[in-house]
């Protein structure tokens, strides 16, 4: 690091220079805003380092397994700060999401010690945890010897934090007292509506506030606009089809995936309420969904919205965020709304996806790895990512309270913060944690595909699904 | 003979005409085959005989010239439309079909009923000694048998012209001798017209009414077997026809009133009374000075008194003996029909009769005298 740059940043930190002129000057030195941000953060981190021996594992090296994601980019952009702070080295493998989780499974199941930590979703830990591939992070969080005083675990959003903790009992409550903290939340997503304002206005459609309005609105706007479809939701034959919009709406009606009768799990998707909801959802896709819905993953859902091929999406809010920027055709045209599918519901209750970090049990040096974990999920990096990079939907209260972050959102993404605030209280994982999660959700998605394709009537399909699910649960000894 | 069944007029065949290395396979070939005639195209490999056959069949286009069958030009006519049958030299059988089916397949276009086909197949199979393999597959029979099946397939057809490409090359000698007679009889009896391509002069002699000797794409001589033997048109035919080949010596003539001396190399000279040569030949010899003299091995006599020669090989073949000797700087071969006892190293005398000499231009190779007369 060059002294000149350090000086500039020190001046800025001490208030002697405006942010704009700092960036301008650094730019003159050949640095981009992002790396300038890194420098800034580095200096800030250093300022905090005094209370804790960050250099304890200096010279060690850890390796990460990462998914290709803006959060990853944000972290990598700031990684020099960590290296500087700790004297450790970090290497990483980044995989596209199409194959990422298969790579994780392959690495973990083979007992590989190659990766010390990796990105994961909370759902995945329901496999990884019981399989014995990851650690209970409480052991480190609660050890002041190992965790820096500024880490502030309590700063984590409670719903999110709890959603990452499970006691390993099939059907057991998430975040219970005996729960193991299988992963550390990093960034998350709520599932809400993102819509194309212009299209809705043109069709004279109000922002829908419940399921039937959504269906109507989608049909109407599709009919009124050429070459678009009404509503984008995921449809590929994968667990990922179930967890976003679909489950958020489903659970808003109080429906469950499974019921837990004293540790015995049973499928619950063939209740009357569930059947009614499914019927609506299927009809919505049939009427106003994408033509190739059954191959749509989240990036098609997003791309279509960004390209002006769809009017709305019911998916991760951050997807709406990304589509509203950059060189997307519809950048700046998109707006957000919290969405409660159930007209009776008081508020949205979105299911959430939590990008988390977890340590591999096979790692050769968990303590050193924890240094990375606490830094990456710590308040400083969260703030850096939120302010400078696209680390939207951060998991820390303190970040949401940060004015700079809120200002950034409000300027570029009007309505986003409101939407967030509206749905955050009800946001949590709505699935029942259990080892057959992926079997269940994949089968569920396949059944949705069949129902949408009119291969099977909704009631019949759900009965079949429930029966099949129950059989599998029984075979796995869960019923 | 313009009324021939087949007429080839000024045929040229050039392969890879447009490439940098065109190959002329046939040059200015004129040939007429009369109806009912058996003609052999005789020559060593690459002489153009197979190309000629394939042009007649229609597998190859002529580069220039005209092929007429029954007086009708066939240029551009599909092979099937030429009414020509052919026996192929190599693996021309239909591998998936049995021998009987192979033979009968040729009759597809003739629309015969089954019994008739069967009778015909049986007859031809009997003729060619393949009755016992009619149900076998082509790949499971010997090369000689395959060749006979191919022959049967050609002969069974009613066609204006039968083309036989080396039809007996793969046969055992005994069978070959037997079948030659049968095939000739078969062709003659039915009045078929056939063109036989072969490199085996014995076969050509035995089968053909006339033989066209080809070399280097050129027709060297087209004549009866007797004429080819007794009156070869040129040095090539002279040395090509006849087993063992004709002995050839460069000669200078010295013509006196009563004596004609032919000087060979290494001081050997042969003297003949002037009367042995016709007067016109004598005149000719006065002009020619340098020429080539050929004499067939059968006409080389070994005597006590002849010109000196030294034997270097004496090979007895049962019914004849081949004696090779150094003579006038060359090898001379003499054929004896007894078991001659001349051992290698022995000195002998060579005597030649004027009536057995063939004289050729040394430049063009064209014959100008056979047995003392003038062509």
């Amino acid at each position, binding site marked *: 690091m060059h002294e000149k740059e350090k000086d500039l940043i020190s001046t800025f930190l001490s208030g002697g220079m405006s942010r704009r002129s700092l960036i301008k000057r650094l730019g003159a030195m050949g640095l981009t805003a992002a790396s300038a941000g890194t420098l800034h953060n580095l200096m800030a981190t250093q300022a905090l380092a005094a209370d804790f021996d960050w250099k304890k594992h200096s010279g060690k090296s850890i390796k990460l397994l990462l998914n290709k994601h803006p959060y990853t980019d944000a972290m990598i952009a700031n990684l020099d700060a960590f290296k500087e702070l700790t004297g450790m080295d970090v290497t990483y493998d980044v995989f596209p999401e199409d194959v990422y989780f298969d790579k994780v499974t392959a690495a973990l199941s083979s007992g590989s010690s190659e990766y010390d930590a990796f990105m994961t979703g909370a759902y995945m830990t329901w496999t990884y945890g019981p399989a014995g591939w990851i650690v209970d992070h409480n052991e480190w969080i609660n050890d002041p010897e190992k965790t820096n005083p500024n880490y502030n675990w309590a700063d984590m959003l409670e719903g999110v934090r709890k959603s990452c903790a499970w006691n390993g009992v099939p059907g057991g409550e998430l975040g219970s007292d005996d729960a193991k903290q299988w992963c550390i939340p990093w960034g998350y997503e709520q599932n809400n509506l993102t819509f194309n304002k212009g299209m809705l206005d043109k069709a004279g459609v109000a922002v829908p506030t419940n399921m039937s309005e959504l269906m109507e609105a989608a049909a109407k706007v599709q009919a009124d606009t050429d070459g678009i479809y009404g509503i984008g939701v995921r449809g590929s034959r994968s*667990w990922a089809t179930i967890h976003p919009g679909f489950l958020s709406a489903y659970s808003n009606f109080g429906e469950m995936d499974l019921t837990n009768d004293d540790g015995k799990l049973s499928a619950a998707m063939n209740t009357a309420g569930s059947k009614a909801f499914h019927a609506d959802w299927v009809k919505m896709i049939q009427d106003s969904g994408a033509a190739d819905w*059954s191959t749509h993953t989240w990036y098609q859902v997003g791309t279509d919205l960004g390209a002006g091929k769809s009017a709305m999406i019911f998916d991760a809010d951050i997807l709406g965020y990304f589509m509203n920027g950059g060189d997307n055709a519809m950048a700046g045209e998109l707006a957000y709304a919290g969405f409660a599918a159930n007209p009776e519901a008081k508020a949205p209750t979105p299911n959430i996806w939590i990008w988390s970090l977890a340590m591999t049990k096979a790692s050769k040096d968990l303590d050193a790895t924890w240094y990375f974990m606490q830094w990456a999920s710590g308040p400083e990096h969260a703030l850096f990512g939120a302010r400078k990079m696209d680390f939207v939907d951060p998991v820390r209260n303190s970040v949401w309270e940060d004015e700079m972050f809120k200002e950034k959102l409000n300027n570029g993404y009007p309505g986003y913060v409101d939407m967030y605030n509206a749905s955050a209280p009800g946001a949590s994982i709505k699935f029942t944690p259990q080892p057959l999660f992926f079997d269940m959700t994949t089968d569920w998605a*396949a059944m949705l595909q*069949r129902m949408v*394709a009119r291969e099977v009537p909704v009631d019949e399909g759900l009965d079949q699904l429930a029966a099949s699910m129950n059989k599998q649960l029984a075979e*796995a*000894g869960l019923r | 003979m313009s009324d021939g069944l087949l007429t080839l007029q000024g045929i040229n065949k050039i392969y890879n005409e447009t490439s940098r290395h065109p190959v002329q396979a046939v040059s200015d070939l004129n040939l007429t085959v009369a109806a009912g005639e058996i003609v052999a195209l005789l020559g060593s490999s690459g002489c153009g005989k197979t190309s000629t056959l394939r042009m007649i069949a229609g597998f190859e286009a002529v580069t220039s010239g005209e092929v007429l069958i029954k007086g009708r030009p066939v240029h551009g006519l599909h092979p099937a439309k030429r009414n020509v049958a052919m026996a192929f030299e190599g693996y021309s059988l239909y591998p998936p079909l049995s021998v009987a089916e192979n033979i009968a*397949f040729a009759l597809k276009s003739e629309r015969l009923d089954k019994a008739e086909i069967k009778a015909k197949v049986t007859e031809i199979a009997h003729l060619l000694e393949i009755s016992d393999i009619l149900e076998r597959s082509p*790949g499971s029979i010997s090369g000689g048998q395959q060749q006979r099946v191919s022959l049967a397939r050609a002969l069974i057809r009613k066609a204006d012209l039968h083309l036989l490409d080396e039809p007996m090359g793969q046969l055992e000698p005994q069978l070959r001798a037997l079948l030659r007679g049968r095939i000739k009889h078969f062709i003659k009896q039915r009045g078929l017209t056939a063109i036989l391509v072969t490199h085996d002069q014995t076969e050509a002699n035995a089968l053909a009414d006339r033989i066209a000797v080809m070399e280097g794409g050129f027709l060297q001589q087209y004549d009866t077997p007797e004429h080819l033997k007794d009156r070869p048109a040129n040095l090539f035919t002279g040395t090509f026809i006849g087993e063992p080949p004709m002995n050839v010596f460069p000669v200078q003539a010295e013509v006196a009133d009563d004596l004609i001396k032919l000087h060979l190399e290494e001081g050997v000279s042969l003297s003949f009374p002037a009367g042995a040569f016709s007067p016109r030949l004598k005149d000719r010899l006065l002009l020619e000075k340098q020429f080539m003299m050929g004499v067939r091995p059968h006409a080389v006599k070994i005597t006590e008194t002849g010109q000196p020669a030294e034997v270097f090989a004496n090979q007895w073949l049962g019914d004849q003996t081949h004696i090779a000797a150094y003579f006038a700087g060359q090898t001379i071969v003499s054929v004896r029909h007894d078991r001659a006892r001349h051992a290698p190293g022995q000195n002998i005398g060579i005597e030649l009769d004027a009536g057995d000499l063939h004289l050729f231009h040394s430049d063009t190779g064209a014959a100008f005298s056979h047995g003392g007369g003038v062509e």
Partner: protein
Amino acid sequence: MSVQADMPVMRRSSRLSRTMLPYLLSLPALLVCIGILIPFGTAVYYSLQRYRMSQPWNRGMNWGENYLNFFTDPDFWNTLQVSLTYAGLTVVLELLLGLGIALLLQKRSRVNNFVSIMLLMPLMTAPALAALMFKLMTNSNFGILSYFMQLAGFQDFRWASSPDTALLTVILVDVWVYTPFIMILLLAGLRSLPTQPFEAAALDGVPRLEQFWRITLPMLSPYILTAALFRLLDSIQQFDIIYAMTQGGPGDKLMVFQVEAYLNFFQSTNVGRSAALLMILWAITYVLSNIFVKNWLRLRERARGEA
């Protein structure tokens, strides 16, 4: 010249070292392959276990239970049916098309040679990437093929997204990628057939159709069978194209063996079932290739006229 110097002293070598040579030459290749047999053995072992990685406490030998379960498992029968349908359809289509194209290109000419080289291009495209290409071309927004379909009056043709056309779509990709393989094989076969039988047939005025059925086709049959087998065995194990295009969906429409096994392993972490599925697939391919080898020899003899 002395007699001794004349005759070289003949060096003797042991019979053993001579007979060992072929084994020594093939040993390294064998060792590498034996390395592959070890994981194969492991797979057999797994297939006999109740083994789901997310429930390590449940793991244990259940012997043939994974296999027995298949009998009552509609998913398994679906997988079997889909795999066989897919393999059957692709092989038949590609054979017919490949044979047709090979016949078109049989004559050696500059145009034909050029075209046959052009046709190598799909074959050089990795199936996974070909699937990606077709995914782009069948995209409902901007896909050129979807556009063509619209022009042709199919407003809503959904390609791989619809259960009605998904199979058709992946078969289209398979046909696009692999027909050239069959074409090249059959073309080489056609061109290596001896010309004389066909000349003889032409001369004898045998009708072309008769020639084709009774001579060309039987003579080509070893090539056809080889092509069919290579394709059949590859296509019953199809993974790349289907995984890249639909991951087995929509519904279970394209849930072929390897995709099902892959998902079982990586998503459900149901190792036992995954291994058992693959073992069944392996058994099918092994039986098929054995039948093939036996018939191939017979057919070859017949084609060569040796039987």
